[in-house]
């Protein structure tokens, strides 16, 4: 499997991914989730979640469908608020403040905690307007500054070279993989602290997937990343730590290398080795 990926990578002209560096436990926390419970109406979707997310690391969340991993990541930027009938208890401390407090404005939170979605969702506007959307809603009008932000964000999402000559073209005319990188550029343009990615490669072909994975590795130096993935190999390739969710609970949370080679819980082992899920 690994060999096959390496071959695909060579054919796509991509350089080999550097392994995640040795993890330093001293990294400060970005998010600290404490005894988080969440209900959709009567359905208890998240049960007593305790989960730290560290700065400048990629934290992968794996688990079978319906285990609550998407719900969890959407709680981190309070996108769950958009769904009616959601109740929560417990707390999620972000930079010293509980984001579940009534007083914490979701707009402020989402400005600091950006998101990339499962299906590429560019606006039916030009590439430029897509990337400039975030800065514009936050009140930036200066054409010169917007130009700078757009270029920096597109470079940051490794797509500048492909689109620099057609910034006025409709973003929906790009390929799926390019669209997803535009969406990543769009998230970067707001200059967030954390980027949440909800299965960002599940709608992409293998080569686009590798490009996005490589990008995630590069983004780790400047951002903290939480990525939900269905693909265990992906979690193994790109994340420093992994949390395994099952039926709304965190079964295991550890350094990715350790979890994949030597899981403590039998259920984690079963899932990772492909016995269910």
């Amino acid at each position, binding site marked *: 499997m690994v060999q096959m990926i390496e071959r695909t990578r060579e054919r796509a002209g991509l350089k080999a991914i550097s392994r995640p560096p040795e993890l330093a436990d001293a990294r400060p926390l970005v998010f600290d989730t404490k005894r988080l419970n969440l209900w959709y109406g009567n359905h208890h979707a998240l049960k007593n979640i305790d989960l730290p997310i560290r700065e400048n690391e990629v934290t992968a969340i794996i688990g079978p469908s319906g285990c609550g991993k998407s719900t969890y990541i959407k709680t981190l930027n309070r*996108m769950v608020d958009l769904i009616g009938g959601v109740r929560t208890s417990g707390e999620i401390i972000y930079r010293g403040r509980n984001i579940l407090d009534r007083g914490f404005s979701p707009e402020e939170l989402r400005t600091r905690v*950006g998101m990339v*979605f499962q299906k590429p969702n560019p606006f039916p506007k030009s590439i430029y307007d897509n990337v400039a959307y975030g800065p514009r809603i936050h009140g930036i009008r200066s054409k010169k500054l917007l130009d700078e932000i757009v270029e920096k964000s597109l470079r940051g999402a490794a797509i500048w070279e492909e689109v620099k000559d057609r910034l006025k073209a409709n973003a929906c005319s790009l390929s799926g993989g390019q669209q997803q990188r535009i969406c990543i550029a769009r998230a970067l343009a707001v200059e967030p602290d954390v980027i949440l990615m909800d299965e960002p490669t599940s709608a992409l072909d293998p080569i686009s997937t590798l490009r996005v994975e490589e990008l995630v590795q590069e983004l780790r130096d400047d951002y903290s990343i939480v990525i939900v993935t269905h693909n265990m190999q992906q979690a193994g390739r790109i994340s420093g730590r992994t949390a395994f969710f099952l039926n709304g609970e965190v079964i295991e949370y550890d350094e990715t290398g350790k979890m994949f080679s030597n899981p403590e819980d039998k259920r984690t082992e079963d899932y990772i080795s492909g016995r269910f899920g």
Partner: protein
Amino acid sequence: MRITERQPVRPLMDPEAVEGRMKARKAADRLFRMLFLTSTLLVLMVLGVLFYRILSQGLGNLTPAFFENFASRMPEKAGIRAALTGSLWLMAVVAPVSMILGVGTAVYLEEYAKKNRLNDWVRMNISNLAGVPSVVFGLLGLTVFARALALGNSILAAGLTMSLLILPVIIVASQEAIRAVPRDLREASFGMGATKWQTIVRVVLPGAVPGILTGSILALSRAIGETAPLIVLGVPVIIQFLPAGVLDTFTALPMQIYDWAKRPQAAFQEVASAGIIVLLILLLAMNSAAVLIRNKFRNRY
């Protein structure tokens, strides 16, 4: 290893019986084809007769003088100047009032209102209002605008009544257009810290505008042809001046046509036909605009 079960050796469908029924099935196919063709032809024929009658009677009267003259007792001097101007004034009231109220209501119902029983009930009843006969709206206008607000049979009273009449259609069309904007795009906008209002203005409305415009134009074209509410409001037909403002009395194209058509003299029938041609051209122009807008913005997502 086989996954499917082994097929029986003898087929379960008897090929001869199938062959025998083939003829009857094909005959039924032809019969229905003919039936549908006939209904289409019937409709086209009715339309053709209507057009022929109106064009043959009315075209001769469609002179520049017809547009310059006011209504008159003598058919050769009768014109639609007051009626055409009145209809345009009416539209000038109906278009902004109904679109602002309609789109505003649709945005509230789709984007802000919580999904609960009460709101479902409100939504359902707005759709039901679209089916209420126009004469009933005329009575409502008479009670509220003409009498209670003392607007009489002015352009404003008629315009507000017509706005109420087409409001449900505009609301429903706008709701559908807003609902058609993918959820993903709203999430993308919220995900960058946009407020609800910013998301509506920058993402939802631009996506929904073609649908909203198409629905609104079709609704307006209904308002321009409505007669019943104007009759109930007591809008006059013989008017020898042009309105100077929305509080003046006026007359409108369908009222004028209705008045001419019910007169005994044959010459007035021809004048009525000329009026109908003008009204039809207005309607056709509005409907074509709606179709053009719809085609221009199709398949945006």
